[in-house]
């Protein structure tokens, strides 16, 4: 310890053990709880995001834009086109999916693109009848834009691949129809019916999807839905899903089709998660506020008790800024220990929380509490503590620096 100010700060601080331990405990709790709450709330949000990206991809292209006089005029002005969506008309579906897919693949952030034919159907099992939606896919394309390969719980994707009349049925729908792998069912749409076989059962965890979606090979779906060409939508996966809004805007501009990024598609749920994260952040910041008040209290006490020491330091040539630094160093020492211990506490509690059994099935499926391990949470927690504690410490530190040594020695210090 070479700095005289740091040396003095350390001794002043350790002389007030009880107050110092209280400040330290509050800082540790503040940092630790901040990390835990961020890890848990963002854990669920990220898992939800992963789930919906795994089902619907990062971007969907559907419905061709029909140019009108108004939209054509706006398109000339670049981005202003999107600001005047009320002037845009759409033609349902994708007329030339192959051409569009080729164009989409030219975008550097695009990882995969799949053309999907969708239609409303009725499923008839030996047990009962259910409404559902059929999705006609090319399996090789679709596994690149979804997590279908990981979502299969019974049977195998290989069985589906090798069976032209095979179907992938959602877990909830399969339960309702009492279907198992290998069972057959009748799919009816637009007056036509077909018998298909359950090749596999999948589960995304998103109940609405697992309750309604049935995947068929595209030729089978086209035949059933009487749609020999075109597609209902293109599903796109991205290398960096966070950039979906920018890519979607560019795709819409270039391809002249309606393009929706996942952030827009799922904005309701994302807003809920954001509100949850902010509310917990505010709650936990109260702990950090308490830590800063405890630090303020400790330093204010030390200033009161060490006025004579401050006077002697000033008489020995220590400047006002040295006195300020001595007190800020004390806050710094508590922060340094508090941040490290708080981060360790946060990591330990996060790990423990991750072991808590918590079955959830609805917007995603999990059987444990979901946490995220993100260095940004640790940096955020430490930064919040540093700002709040240092701001609170400035007041007593500046008060100490303002003390006049002559007044103190005369015994008239206010």
């Amino acid at each position, binding site marked *: 310890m070479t700095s005289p100010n740091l040396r003095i700060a350390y001794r002043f601080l350790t002389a007030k053990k009880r107050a110092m331990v209280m400040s330290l405990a509050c800082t540790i709790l503040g940092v630790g709880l901040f990390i835990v709450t961020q890890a848990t709330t963002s854990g669920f949000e990220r898992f939800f995001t992963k789930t919906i990206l795994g089902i619907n991809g990062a971007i969907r292209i559907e419905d061709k834009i029909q140019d009108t006089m108004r939209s054509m005029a706006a398109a000339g002005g670049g981005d202003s086109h999107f600001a005047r969506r009320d002037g845009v008309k759409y033609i349902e579906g994708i007329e030339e999916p192959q051409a569009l897919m080729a164009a989409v693949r030219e975008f550097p952030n695009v990882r995969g693109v799949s053309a999907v034919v969708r239609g409303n159907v009725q499923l008839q099992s030996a047990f009962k009848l259910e409404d559902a939606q059929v999705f006609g896919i090319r399996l090789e394309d679709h596994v690149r834009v979804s997590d279908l390969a990981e979502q299969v719980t019974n049977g195998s994707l290989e069985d589906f691949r090798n069976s032209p009349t095979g179907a992938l049925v959602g877990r909830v729908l399969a339960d309702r129809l009492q279907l198992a792998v290998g069972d057959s069912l009748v799919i009816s749409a637009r007056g036509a019916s077909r018998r298909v076989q359950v090749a596999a059962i999948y589960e995304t965890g998103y109940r609405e999807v697992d309750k309604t979606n049935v995947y068929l090979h595209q030729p089978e779906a086209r035949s059933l839905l009487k749609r020999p060409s075109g597609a209902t939508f293109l599903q796109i996966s991205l290398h960096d899903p966070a950039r979906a809004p920018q890519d979607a805007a560019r795709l819409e501009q270039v391809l002249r089709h309606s393009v929706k990024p996942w952030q827009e598609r799922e904005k309701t749920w994302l807003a809920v998660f954001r509100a949850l994260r902010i509310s917990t952040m505010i709650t936990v910041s109260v702990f950090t506020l308490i830590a800063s008040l405890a630090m303020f209290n400790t330093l204010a006490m030390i200033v009161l008790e060490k006025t004579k020491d401050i006077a002697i330091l000033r008489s*020995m040539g220590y400047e006002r800024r040295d006195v300020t630094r001595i007190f800020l160093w004390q806050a710094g020492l508590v922060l340094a220990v508090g941040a490290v211990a708080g981060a360790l506490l946060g990591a330990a509690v996060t790990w423990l929380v991750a072991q808590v059994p918590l079955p959830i099935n609805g917007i995603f499926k999990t059987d444990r509490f979901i946490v995220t391990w993100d260095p940004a949470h640790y940096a955020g927690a430490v930064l919040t503590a540093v700002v709040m504690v240092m701001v609170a410490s400035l007041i007593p530190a500046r008060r100490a620096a303002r003390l006049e040594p002559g007044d103190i020695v005369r015994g008239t210090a206010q």
Partner: protein
Amino acid sequence: MTSSAPASAAGPAWALRCRGLHRHLGEGEGRVHVLKGVSFEAERGQVYAIVGPSGCGKSTLLYLLGLLDRPDEGEIEINGRRMSNHDDAARTAARGEHIGFVFQFHFLMLEFTALENVMMPMRKLGRLAPAAMRERAHALLDSVGLGAKTHRLGTQLSGGEQQRVAIARALANQPAILLADEPTGNLDVRNSNLVFDLLTRLAKDNGQAVVLVTHNPEIAQRCDVTRPMRDGLFV
């Protein structure tokens, strides 16, 4: 008696000089004119005693001379440099370099050992390497008879020992001026004599000007110059 000295090539013989110092203390109706135009000089190697009744302005003058306080009017020169109008940083630097203080209640920093207390002004001035600081602090504590107690905390030393550590600390940066406010006021006779002898011997050895405020007539008699004060003026 006021002594004045001619300037030499190495600088003035006096280490400290003030002219026409005025100082008021208190506010409003309680405002008191404590110093009423005091002038004073202190030569190197001389020991000065400022004596007088309580409230006559002795300590106020000492704090002004030590740049711990600002005069309302008048000039203070340290080693030929006028300091009364300087900003806080320059006055603080001058205190660290040219002035050593010994107070009645020693004001040791009790969380630190005797050695650390003596090293504290040296660490701030930064003139010596850490090893040299340590060596000088040991030598100073040896010279005040505390060579065997260098690693004791302030709380583990008697009152007389603490005051001797304070003297060693005041001498740490080899200041030109040593200011002592009742340095023996809180000690018994034996320790008073010991502390006074130390203060004067070390100051004389190093050619430092010593100005001490005291109520003790025996101590005052043993100083080279005695300056009695009454009602804010030397008499």
